[in-house]
């Protein structure tokens, strides 16, 4: 029985993958038959955008075991970039002296940062370290107050005179790329702080940054028009006005599908390359991989930033498709926990499983909205017969049922199918 160890596994017929794909295709066809082409294509495009988000999360959670609880924040960052770059230029703003004012304040902010950074280096000139820290902190507080009051003046001026600063009128694709880059930058900041520590801290910090990004976008009327929302956002493809809904959405679907295909191919290569093996080795046994001389924190930071970039791109694609930028539309439930369910249900670490999970979960999600409302109406009409008066905020309460379902799904999957529908294939050599 001393067979030579081979790298090749006995090739198994991918029955599970095939049957899942077929079931999914049947479900999609059923939706097409019932709801019509325009609606179903819209659903598919959104599902494709969610698949990009889910791929971002699956490399963080599945490949590296990092839990990002703030997908919503990175989605919103991608969305705001897509909006700012693609929306037409606001002539009133650029014609006034306000751009110079804003630029001046930003220059002051830069100068303040340089000054504070300089103060933290005072100990090299022989200043005692405690005194240096004191000087740096006091200086930072004072300069911050100065800059923030100047900024408040300019932004109030912008809001009252020209509404908001408007967009840059560039092609939508530029916004998507910059959105990914910005999300990656924020991810680098968070990851740099948290990745060397307990894994729980990353979850807490990402949860916090997501709420902060949302609060910033919601209240910065000069940048995003806040609750007034910006619409319509241009598409990278011909809009429905020229081609009709089905055709325009189908072309958009092709674009997102192409992005997914490229990401899928690159991830597949990376997963089997030395880089991917290192990542998985770190996930499975951190100490032994550190002992092998791998730079654990550096690899972790790489994968976290990569995941955040994908989330930024996915968020930008999603926001552009919805054609409206509404900061209040970014909800933890829709943009964090739904993606989490997609990943853990589809199979963390398995890209195909994640994509199937994304489409499947989104299908159920979209179909559950009319179902929940229908059930609530049924309940209240039953209740009327028994003399029960349904509360006024019935609609908003019915939607809370979906929160419950997502929560139940997360806990049940973790308990009964921790590896998901398509488990990650771990090759055992020899």
């Amino acid at each position, binding site marked *: 029985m001393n067979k030579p160890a081979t790298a090749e596994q006995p090739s198994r017929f991918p029955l599970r993958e095939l049957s899942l794909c077929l079931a999914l295709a049947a479900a999609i066809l059923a939706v097409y038959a019932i709801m019509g082409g325009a609606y179903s294509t819209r659903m598919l495009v959104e599902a494709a955008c969610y698949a990009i988000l889910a791929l971002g999360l699956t490399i963080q959670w599945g490949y590296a075991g990092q839990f990002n609880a703030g997908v919503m924040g990175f989605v919103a960052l991608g969305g705001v970039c897509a909006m700012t770059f693609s929306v037409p230029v606001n002539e009133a703003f650029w014609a006034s002296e306000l751009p110079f004012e804003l630029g001046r304040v930003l220059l002051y902010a830069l100068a303040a940062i340089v000054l504070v950074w300089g103060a933290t280096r005072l100990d090299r000139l022989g200043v005692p370290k405690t005194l240096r820290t004191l000087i740096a902190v006091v200086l930072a507080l004072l300069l911050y107050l100065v800059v923030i009051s100047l900024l408040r003046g300019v932004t109030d001026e912008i809001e009252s005179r020209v509404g908001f600063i408007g967009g840059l009128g560039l092609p939508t694709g530029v916004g998507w790329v910059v959105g990914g880059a910005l999300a990656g930058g924020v991810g680098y900041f968070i990851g740099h702080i948290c990745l060397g520590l307990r894994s729980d801290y990353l979850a807490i910090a990402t949860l916090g940054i997501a709420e902060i990004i949302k609060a910033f976008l*919601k209240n910065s009327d000069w940048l995003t028009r806040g609750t007034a929302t910006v619409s319509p956002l241009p598409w990278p493809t011909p809009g429905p006005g020229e081609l009709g809904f089905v055709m325009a959405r189908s072309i958009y679907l092709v674009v997102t599908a192409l992005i997914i295909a490229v990401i899928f191919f690159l991830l597949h290569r990376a997963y089997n390359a030395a880089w991917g093996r290192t990542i998985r080795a770190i996930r499975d046994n951190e100490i032994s991989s550190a002992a092998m001389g791998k730079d654990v924190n550096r690899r972790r930071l790489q994968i976290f930033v990569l995941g955040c970039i994908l989330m930024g791109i996915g968020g930008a694609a999603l926001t552009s498709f919805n054609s409206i930028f509404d900061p209040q539309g970014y909800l933890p439930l829709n943009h964090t926990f739904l993606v989490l369910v997609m990943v853990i249900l589809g199979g963390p670490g398995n890209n195909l499983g994640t994509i199937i999970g994304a489409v499947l979960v989104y299908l159920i999600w979209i179909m559950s909205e009319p179902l929940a409302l229908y059930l609530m109406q049924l309940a209240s009409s039953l209740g009327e017969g028994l003399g029960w008066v349904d509360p006024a905020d019935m609609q908003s309460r019915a939607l809370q049922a979906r929160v419950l379902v997502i929560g139940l799904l997360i*806990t049940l999957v973790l308990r009964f199918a921790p590896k998901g529908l398509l488990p990650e294939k771990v090759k055992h050599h020899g």
Partner: protein
Amino acid sequence: MNELVFFINNVVVAGSVTGSIYAIGAVGVTLIFSIMRFAHFAHADMMTFGALMVLVLTTAFPEVGGAVGLPTAVVMLPLAMALTALLAVGIDKGFYKPLRAHGVKPIVMVIGSLGVALILQGLIRLFAGTRAQSLYIAERKEIFRLELPFESVTRPIIVTEPQVILFILTLAAVIGLHLFLNRTRTGKAMRAMSDNPDLARASGINTSRIVTITWIIAGGLAAVAGTLLSLDVAFKPDLSFFLLLPIFAAAIVGGVGHPYGAIAGGFVVGFAETLAVFNWAVLLRPLQQHFPDWLELPRNLAFVGTEYKIVVPFFILVAILVWRPTGIFKGKVI
């Protein structure tokens, strides 16, 4: 001197109120952290559940408080604490224990607790709606005005009845917890388990009993914190993640697994929040005449607007993780 009274009302009183609430919440989080080694994301929703129980009981029996001379909500608190403790133990048996039995990584427990948080959120909002509701149903909020015996002060210091109750209850909870952890056998066993679970098990401590007791304490304290928060303002079912961040920040600032640290951390975060949203221009305006002419005070000199309040605990969290990840009191679990 009216400005100073304004400062006391808006920073000292308000800061101690939020500080106490965060402190009681953070103690529960830190106890769970030290015994079960995971960040419990459902804690804020457990607080909301406790407050909801008080609301339900107060609506059912609005007249009880008048007979005792306390707000009805406070009379109902012990019952709500028991119910929340029961819920916490039930959640542990139903959701966390099977995961623990599988020996999963702590981060999977964190995701599990997020699932539980969503379940609780969904249930609470399904039954209670999403509106804010006052816990004072049949009574009026008593307001105490303390006049200061100075010529130049015309404004009083304002403290409301729920705030006084809050200070008393916080003090009682802290002293009770201290006595429990230091004087009783169970409390000592709990500390032993947080130090070294294997050693504790080997020396004959029933660890599953300790876990149950931890959940009872954490659930009870969560009910207290949630009720105090709702008494001070109103019952709001949608606070969840906005409460979670300051509470975790408080627990980490104090050193994870360190109950006294969590109390200190709660007050640090609470005061930092109120100091950051306080408009410092109010305090500086009387000194305006001593400033040089070119230095004109802006109208609003707050560090952050109230809409960005959540930035403060996050900033504290980042700062403590960068400079001292073990917290000010050297937490045991990093």
